[in-house]
């Protein structure tokens, strides 16, 4: 494994009495697409601003590219940022915006011009150089901000919720463009987002943050399939939480009694946070199936009554009432050919198995 591009140890940041960051330590690898994911107020933006040099950490230290960053101001750091509101200079044209950081670095005018043109082409804004920011759409402003940062070839590009102001369709398009751009330029990207779907689809690794600390740092798959605790599990995707009683360790796993579902032996790797303390069972909607006829089989079967139906076209989400479970359980079915959609009030047989269950602290 190569040397990390960013190494942070024990980063603390306090604003008055509020501890925004509580001793964050993490490493970001060279060339990866890294996301900081969490609800608003979890400190993800503060952490990004600490990396950029806009906030001085109260304690702890950062190395970027092996160099300590103590006392290095934002304008001397090898990072560049794409701001949430893009911060495109209103008194300059698109080309002047992109040229902004080059002005001081490159004396040769033609060379500057060439790099500006290249950067604009890279983000698909050829021919927009003479426009002012008020003549641009939100998506175009975003591209200007991207070009302006990337033209300086930073070691790390920081993106502060860059997509949150765009409408859904444009956001999805920009997500895939950003991903492609990141692969093409090979620069390490750190993205701050509160949108778990965005983090999962775009990132190589995601750090989930709660209350000023990292709860879990993992690949999107591990995050979804092996969340370390119920906070992470609840934040990433949909998760049914069901009461459970731990009966004890058995060969190959842990025997538990899941409310409404019964006894089952859960493989040890499905309890990533261990089984000490209060434990809850987590089941993803797609880990439960409606058994439509006798030819559908499952390891374990239970009965329930359909409470609510949400039809999404490709998928149908059912809320199912199962005896012994207080809250209706959410279950997702793909609408494959010939499969009918159940109605509220219908009885259904629900299939599940030991693989469906996660044990969470």
């Amino acid at each position: 494994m190569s040397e990390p591009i960013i190494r942070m140890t024990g980063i603390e940041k306090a604003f008055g009495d509020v501890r925004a960051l509580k001793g964050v330590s993490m490493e970001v690898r060279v060339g990866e697409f890294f996301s900081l994911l969490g609800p608003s107020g979890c400190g993800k933006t503060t952490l990004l601003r600490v990396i950029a040099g806009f906030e001085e950490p109260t304690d702890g230290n950062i190395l970027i590219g092996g160099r300590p960053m103590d006392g290095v101001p934002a304008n001397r750091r090898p990072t560049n940022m794409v701001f949430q509101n893009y911060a495109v200079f209103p008194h300059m044209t698109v080309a002047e915006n992109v040229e902004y950081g080059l002005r001081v670095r490159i004396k040769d005018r033609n060379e500057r011009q060439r790099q500006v043109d290249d950067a604009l082409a890279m983000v698909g804004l050829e021919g927009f150089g003479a426009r002012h920011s008020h003549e641009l759409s939100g998506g175009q402003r975003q591209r200007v901000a991207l070009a302006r940062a990337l033209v300086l070839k930073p070691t790390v590009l920081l993106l502060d919720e860059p997509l949150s102001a765009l409408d859904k369709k444009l956001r999805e398009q920009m997500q895939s463009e950003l991903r492609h751009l990141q692969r093409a330029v090979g620069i390490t990207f750190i993205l701050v987002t509160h949108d778990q779907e965005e983090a999962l689809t775009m990132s190589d690794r995601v750090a989930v943050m709660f209350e000023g600390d990292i709860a879990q740092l993992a690949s999107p798959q591990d995050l979804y399939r092996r969340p370390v605790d119920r906070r992470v599990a609840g934040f990433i995707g949909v998760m049914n939480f069901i009461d459970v009683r731990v009966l004890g360790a058995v060969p190959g796993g842990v025997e538990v009694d899941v409310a409404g579902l019964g006894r089952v032996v859960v493989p040890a790797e499905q309890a990533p946070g261990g089984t000490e303390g209060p434990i809850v069972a987590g089941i993803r909607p797609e880990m439960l199936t409606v058994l439509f006829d006798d030819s559908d089989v499952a390891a374990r079967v239970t009965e329930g009554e359909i409470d609510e139906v949400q039809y999404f076209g490709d998928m149908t989400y059912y809320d199912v009432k199962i005896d012994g479970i207080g809250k209706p359980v959410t279950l997702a079915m793909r609408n494959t050919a010939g499969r009918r959609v159940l109605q509220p009030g219908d009885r259904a047989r629900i299939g599940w198995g030991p693989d469906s269950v996660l044990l969470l602290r």
Partner: protein
Amino acid sequence: MTALAGRVSREARNGLLLVSPTLTYALLLLAAPLALVVLLSFWTQDFLEIHRDLTFENYRVAWTEPIYRALMLRSLKISALVTVFTVILAFPIAYFISFHVPTKRKPLWLFLITIPFWTSYLIRIFLWKVILGFNGVVNGSLVGLGLIDEPLSFILYNQNAVVLTLSHAWVPFAILPIYVALERIDRSLLEAAEDLGDGPVRRFLRVTLPLAMPGVLAAALIVFIPTIGDYVTPRLVGGPNGLMIANMIELQFKKANNAPLGAALAISAMVIVSAISIVFLWLNRRYLAGRGG
């Protein structure tokens, strides 16, 4: 269609009715006297008798006689100096309030700036006389400290004193538009400039100042227009060399018994101020043009 047209015209009528008192006031007390002054400037006066044949003679005198030219140029020079000093004094204060005073305390600071207005302008001028006079505060202190042997005479009753007194009086008016322009600057733009490699000085010159320019130009206009016509200040602290065009206009209307020439001088000054103001407004428009404001 007709119903809509009827409604629009009724709304227009209501609107006219609402503005009519103000409009009448403005017509009677601003436009009419101004028209009278314009008319007067084309007449002639012989002692107390006004001759009503139209003539350009007053304007010829106003624009060619060396004394009026000199006074006009001096007024422009003093106004320009006052404008420059006022803006230079006001900018750091506006900057400090906008960028360094906590949001909660900004209203208090803006309120403090109005304190000088609690006393009459005349009293403030007399205070400057006390400060700058032959036996005044400045001279007294300097002599007392042994830094000078005789009181300085170049600090009162000349143009410097006029510029100093006017600049001090107008700073609060200049602070406000500059402050508003600075407040409107999105702080993330400043962070972006820093992020792109600028230190504080370069960032100020490339982002803060250009974006504050509309406020600076507005402040300049607010100070420049009234000071060129000021006659109280030059009269009280200006001495013989500090007199400005307004003092001459007053003289013509009163002691010299030549109201038409006074009117021509007043209109000429107005035309010059208007021309300069238009240039300022045009500059401001150009600054705003770049951002759809």
